[in-house]
């Protein structure tokens, strides 16, 4: 990203003042980081209190309705649920600061399950899927945004706009099932209901088209022994689904910002200087458009980590979203707390990065008068 924001040749000139120039970046970065910690602290309190406010109690639901009152009480004591809220928050927060989110409430004597061990591999899986999706979706969205802005009003613009809009208007599980359906149809289409209705030539056409679809796995069941290559192969469909879900938002933002910038005086000047269309867009328009684009990208990347539980369920992928849903169902409060905190941190960090991009790409902030 940074490469595109520095004009060719400016890098060498920047050397003498570079140390001073980094100061505003550093200051703002630290400022935002501190603010991020404050936000995280407030979020942790909200999480803790809202879970506290949930009706019922873990011990009761764990042991069942028929459990004797003193058994429930003993279990509560064992979990420390008798201590005041404030005290429990402090001990939990102290652990969390050190990276220890405590024990899962599903631990049994003899098989203790640390929250970290439960979350760790799941988090890795989620990041893997998010990274894979981002690698496809972000360049695709920015490229499409540039092209649609350049050819505004053309059939290409309308087609891309319409189809991406359709993709976000449909629930994500539906997209997932449609993609699965296409892959499965590769072998099954001829025997399906649809094939009975359509004329023969249409069937032949569809089957011919389907023959180009690779035989992608529709389930993304993986474990520790799955190799890297196999992992990528199995994640193609989920990644494609998520790409379809997030591309529209990023693309439309890129397009809107670029259209704004393309209408500015300095872009007209660049045209009047006789520069080529590509150069005008890449060297004159885009460097001034990164800040809002980065914000939207950050937002969507956060979504890839926080909000993909439905897609995980459809493809039976062991990500953190499923873990959290399971934890909520079983009232495994430490796991829920840890997941929520991770989600909050994700948002904060990604936004921090977007802010930094905004500063780096704006010489007004980087080079004071």
């Amino acid at each position, binding site marked *: 990203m940074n490469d595109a*924001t520095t*004009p*060719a*040749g*400016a890098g060498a*000139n920047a050397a003498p003042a570079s140390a001073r120039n980094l100061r505003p970046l550093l200051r703002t970065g630290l400022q935002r980081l501190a603010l991020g910690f404050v936000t995280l602290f407030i979020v942790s309190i909200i999480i803790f209190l809202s879970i506290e406010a949930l009706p019922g109690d873990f011990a009761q639901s764990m042991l069942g309705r028929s459990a004797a009152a003193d058994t429930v009480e003993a279990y509560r004591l064992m979990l420390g649920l008798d201590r005041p809220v404030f005290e429990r928050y402090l001990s939990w927060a102290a652990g969390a600061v050190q990276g220890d989110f405590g024990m899962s409430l599903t631990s049994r004597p003899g098989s203790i399950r640390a929250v970290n061990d439960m979350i760790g591999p799941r988090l890795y899986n989620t990041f893997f899927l998010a990274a894979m999706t981002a690698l496809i979706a972000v360049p695709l969205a920015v490229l499409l945004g540039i092209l649609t802005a350049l050819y505004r009003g053309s059939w290409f613009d309308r087609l891309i706009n319409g189809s991406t809009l359709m993709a976000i208007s449909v629930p994500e599980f539906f997209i997932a099932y449609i993609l699965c359906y296409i892959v499965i149809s590769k072998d099954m289409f001829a025997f399906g209901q649809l094939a009975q209705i359509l004329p023969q030539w249409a069937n032949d056409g569809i089957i011919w088209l389907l023959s180009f679809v690779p035989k992608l796995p529709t389930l993304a069941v993986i474990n520790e022994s799955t190799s890297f290559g196999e992992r990528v192969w199995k994640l193609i469909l989920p990644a494609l689904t998520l790409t379809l879900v997030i591309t529209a938002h990023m693309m439309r933002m890129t397009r809107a910002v670029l259209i704004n910038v393309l*209408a*500015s*005086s*300095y*872009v*007209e*000047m*660049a*045209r*009047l*200087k*006789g*520069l*080529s269309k590509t*150069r005008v867009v890449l*060297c*004159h328009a885009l*460097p*001034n458009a990164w800040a809002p684009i980065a914000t939207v990208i950050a937002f969507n990347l956060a979504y890839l980590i926080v909000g993909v539980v439905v897609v995980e369920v459809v493809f039976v992928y062991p990500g953190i979203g499923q873990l959290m849903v399971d934890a909520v169902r079983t009232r495994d409060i430490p796991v829920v707390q840890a997941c929520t905190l991770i989600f909050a941190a994700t948002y904060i960090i990604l936004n921090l990065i977007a802010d930094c991009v905004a500063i780096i*790409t*704006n*010489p*007004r902030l980087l*080079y004071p*008068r």
Partner: protein
Amino acid sequence: MNAENTDLRVRGAPLLQIRDLRIEGFSDDRWHPIVRGIDLELHRGEVLGLIGESGAGKSTLGLVAMGYAKPGCRITGGSVTFDGQDLLAMKEDERRLLRGARIAYVAQSASASFNPAHRLLDQTIETAVTHGLLGRKQASLRAIGMFEKLRLPGAGAIGLRFPHQVSGGQLQRAMTAMAMECRPDLIIFDEPTTALDVTTQVEVLASMREVVREFNTAAIYISHDLAVVAQMADRIMVLRHGKTVEEAPARRMLAEPAEDYTRSLWSVRALAQPERSDTEICLKIDNLVTGYGKSAKVIDDISIELQRGRTLAIVGESGSGKSTLAQVISGMLPAWSGKMTFEGRPLPSGFRSRPRDLLRRIQMIYQSPDTALNPRHSVAETIGRPLEFYLGLKGAAKQRRIKELLDMIEMGSGYLDRLPGELSGGQKQRICIARALAAKPELVICDEVTSALDQLVQSGILKLLSSLQAELGISYLFITHDIATVRAIADHVVVMNQGKVVEQGPKSVVLEPPHQPYTDLLLSSVPEMDPDWLTRVLKSRRATPDAAS
């Protein structure tokens, strides 16, 4: 080079020839003509001045000389021939190679036309390098040489700066250097000094004229200010509604304009308010200090007086603090210290501590009527709102008063349901005046109310303000940077510079010599209707080098 200068008017084939050009623009769902059949000829080394009001089609015409039509414009007829090549028949890629290299462009607002993301030098040499005309190093050396020639301070290092790090006047020179980089045959100057202060304008004009003459570059100089064009151009062409009104060598155009319209272009300069007798004090400000935030002091110890029913003009360049002063008086910005007295009573600082009736008595009219009017409110709503808010008028009484006000601003009730988008610039400013008058104010602060308007419209607005004052006895605090406007309307003048009052007093005293040095610099920088004015000013300044900064 100088020898070539004398050959200026050797008539070979013209460098640029435009024949019966017609251009249409798209707005309100239809195409309508912007340029209706203009012929133009320009020879090598010649400077042609294009002058006219906004909407006359002069910028459009300037761009067509580069084979470029703004988005939303289309060329519907005529031909544009540059050095024997038909610009309109060419492929876009061929035109592209001419632009920047053989035909260059200098835009109105340099601060908007330089890309904020790149350094000045990179932008200056961009065309030469990407078109493969010069190597990077060679181009940089040439650019630095041109920076020097245009008297940019620190020519060697200024190119490493970003646009926001240099002043407006310097940016405009850098843009001239950018245009000259490929040593073009033709430069289009599109209102290059309009956004600059008068004192800066003199120096920028001088350096532009110098390089254009030295390199024998042909130029089209577009402006709405005839006095400025007269300094630059050999020949002047007056445009109106997309047609040529008249065309003549610069000296003859100024000495004996053939058309009434041409004469009306400097009609503001003909207005002169005779000084009137003194009356009681309406507004008195003592030792006012204020600024933005806690530390940015903008106004430093100002004391002024405004008489009832009279006009006090505050003159100064941008950054002198004159608009800030208006904000303090209107209560938008609190004072740090100092005393304000309005009609014998202390005027509280900050509008929150002023009762509604006091707010009613001081009204404002702003520079840009486009942004001062809510685009979704009709004329009746805009004028009706203060009637309701301040005077509690409703129903028929309100409607009657709105009509009265519209009559006062010479517009009539036919405009009641119009939206601002359906009005011209001058009409919008009249609505702003009516809105201020609706509150029955005693003091009206006019902040550069005519500077966004065309000359002819300006004189209409100034006449209206004068007659309203005679009729209603309102006092005006008139903020402007234009000396002609001061002559047209003021009784008293305050000259401000860097937040301080340089000189104040009756108009006859301030505007006539002897002057304070700054007042002298300001007054001598105002372009005059004389083609030799710039040469004369420069000569006198070179003689006393400290006056020119």
